[in-house]
């Protein structure tokens, strides 16, 4: 799940993890930017570098969360793949870990994507996937293609050896149909522009795009067409205000004086509705499914998160009757159905 800053990408990622856990599934919600946004959202204490159950979904589903820490991931990685326990500690003393996770930030991204892919591929004793879906609260749209594509770059740099193999394995997961990169946006110009650019970059990098999620959609309260004539009807509107008990409709009366400021607000609203219509059109022109999530007028609280999850689930499940499909498959099946409905 990616999106421009301020579009609510963490919230939508969490809602998706909840939605996908529906009906007894198990999902993992992964955070990679060290913000502890998930903990804040679920109103729990800061997440350690450890998979931990943070929520239950409808029908006994479970959502686990993990805040990936690049340094710990590197040590893990050394330990797991290369049995380099003591060498790992030596590297740490030498400042090599700092080097790997900060100075060479590309390596940092390798570790973050690598850890997430490990969770995707992990199997239990009976060879079933441990998680039915892994949802990553990924870096912003402007960086997403580069972030996910970092392993390709690494595979090009390290032409042989375990790092090369690991990088290629991660790219295989990321480019497979098991993965879908969803883009969260608002109906505002800059986020929409970034989304369109992001989709182009993802496609150019051969990364699978999922759907566009339009977040914080405000229902249009008033048709713009009504407002076109409104300016000529100030007298009638003033009288209507007066009828509704807001004071006198005569010039200078309380109701009459409400007309101009309220009409101005109406005009701003109409302007926004018009703008949003254009932006919506632009998003629908991307040849990707588009979902819309309503604005939570009181800000995102835990209850609101579940509401978003329900909303998302409704949209995902339209026509997705194939149980056991991967998250990407499910989402896409759902959204294709939604699209054909629209058509």
């Amino acid at each position, binding site marked *: 799940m990616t999106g*421009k800053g*301020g579009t609510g990408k963490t919230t939508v990622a969490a809602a998706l993890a909840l939605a996908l856990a529906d009906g007894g599934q198990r999902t993992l919600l992964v955070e990679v930017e060290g913000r502890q*946004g998930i903990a*804040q959202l679920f109103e729990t*204490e800061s997440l350690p570098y450890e998979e931990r159950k943070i929520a239950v979904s409808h029908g006994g589903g479970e959502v686990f969360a993990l805040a990936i820490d690049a340094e710990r991931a590197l040590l893990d990685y050394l330990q797991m793949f*290369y049995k*380099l326990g003591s*060498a790992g500690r*030596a*590297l740490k003393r*030498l*400042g090599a870990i*700092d*080097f790997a996770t*900060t*100075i060479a*930030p*590309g390596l*940092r*991204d390798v570790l973050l994507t690598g850890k997430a892919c490990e969770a995707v591929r992990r199997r239990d004793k009976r060879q079933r996937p441990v998680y039915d879906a892994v949802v990553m609260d990924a870096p912003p749209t402007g960086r997403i293609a*580069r972030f996910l594509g*970092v392993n390709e770059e690494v595979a*090009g740099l*390290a*032409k*042989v*050896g*375990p*790092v090369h193999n690991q990088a290629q394995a991660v790219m295989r997961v990321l480019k497979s149909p098991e993965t879908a990169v969803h883009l969260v946006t608002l109906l505002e110009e800059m986020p929409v*522009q*970034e989304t369109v650019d992001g989709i182009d970059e993802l496609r150019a990098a051969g990364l699978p795009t999922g759907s566009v999620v339009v977040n914080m959609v405000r229902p249009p*309260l*008033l*048709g713009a067409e*009504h407002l076109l004539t409104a300016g000529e009807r100030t007298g*009638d*509107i003033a*009288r*209507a*205000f*007066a*009828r*509704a*008990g*807001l*004071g*006198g*409709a005569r010039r200078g*009366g*309380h109701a009459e004086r409400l007309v*101009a*400021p*309220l009409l*101005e*607000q109406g005009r701003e609203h109409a*302007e*926004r509705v018009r*703008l949003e219509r254009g932006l919506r059109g632009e998003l629908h022109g991307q040849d990707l499914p588009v979902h819309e999530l309503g604005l939570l*007028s009181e800000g*995102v609280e835990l209850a609101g998160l579940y509401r978003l999850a329900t909303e998302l689930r409704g949209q995902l499940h339209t026509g997705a009757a194939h149980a056991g499909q991967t998250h990407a498959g499910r989402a896409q099946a759902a959204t294709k159905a939604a699209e054909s409905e629209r058509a």
Partner: protein
Amino acid sequence: MGAPDEAIATPNEAGDGGPLAIEPLAIDPLLDDPQTRIIVCCGSGGVGKTTTAAALGVRAAERGRRTVVLTIDPARRLAQSMGLSELDNTPREVPGVDTSAGGELHAMMLDMKRTFDEIVEAHAEPDRAKAILDNPFYQSLSAGFAGTQEYMAMEKLGQLRSDDEWDLIVVDTPPSRSALDFLDAPKRLGSFLDGKFIKLMMAPARVGGRAGMKFVNLGMAGLSMFTGALNKLLGAGLLRDMQTFVAAMDTMFGGFRTRADATYRLLQAPGTAFLVVAAPERDALREAAYFVERLAADRMPLAGLVLNRMHGSEAARLSAERALAAAENLEDGGIVDRSRGNGDGHEALSAGPEDPEDGSPVAESPGTAGSVTTARASRTPHAEDTTACTAKTPSTTAKTPSMPSGNGAAKESEEAAQQTDTPSQEQPGAPTAEPEDEAGQLAAGLLRLHAERMRLLARERRTRDRFTALHPEVPVTEVAALPGDVHDLTGLRTIAERLAQQPYSAD
């Protein structure tokens, strides 16, 4: 940081509700002060940081200062609004800026790779420079993995400042994961260069390629384990690339580091002003609080908080609850005013057409849409205003279902009605009125819209007050929301005017 923040916030929120003294952030004196040489705009993504930086640049230039705006990866349209169509690493003059006061506006976008290359070219001999520039490891590092931006932004800022060509440099910080990345860049670089790691990396390369590797492998246990591990991990080819790269960089890193340290000190100096930019949303302000704390910890001079996209209303005296109740009345269609004239007459008698008591808030407003809320806020201490607004909600809501009520008393005092009274109500009459129906629907829509606006406004203020309760020492300026995005200089000027308005100035 989340948990402690919350812990602190709770007692404050639940506190006495007394007026919060928000200090106004005076933008113009800051821009005009010849001592102000650098303004750094920081904040989380999506809060209008770049727009704020650009708007400040326009205003400073038009007030007579030779200004350069350093933006990092701006949205294409914003770049276009400043006449920048391409990524270019040198300042370009922005056309259309009023230079009559003697100022100028230049703008540039940071090209990371170009900046990095320039450093290499300037500090290494041609052969060595070529070796570095051709090194694959260098190429992917400099092309802009997350993190490189911060170093290069610091480097460019240092360069611009040392040129001494500019009265004022306005910097837009990269959309970092956190404030740490920008402020830590010099320190991190320093600790890296002081670390043993770089020396180890360079040891074999110094001795020379393959021979070096052999030497290391024969050598001390620690070293062989180290390079052995790396070789195993990375493959020998990459390790060699890294070593060549690090060794080549070593010659210039010294200077790089000195400059980064100097830039860091420059940021702490009195000529610098940090502006934390936020939107009135919980997450953005939480991040802003974090920036404020972080800047204080690093002894960076914070000028204040810019709160973008605040909403206002010219009709703020009509509460959300009353507006909704009135809208419901109209939509029910059950209420038709048969005594309209009476209503007017009644009011005319009691208050008069001028109605001096209630005044016209519009007339007080110096200009833009959002100003009224803030102007109103200045009349009474704003916190009280907000508390009243929130506290009022339950009682009014509770009363709403009981309407319609008698009309006479409510109309006697609009002020009172606005605060606590049950909304005034005309006598119910015949159910429909044909010509008025459409206007009624339109009026109801406008009222619903207004109710939504008032709720948004109250929510934004609550969010803001949570921040100011935590950081009462931080001066604040609010910028009223525009319906759309900024596309041109005119838009930037409008933003700048809103920035410079002082909502809390004494009346």
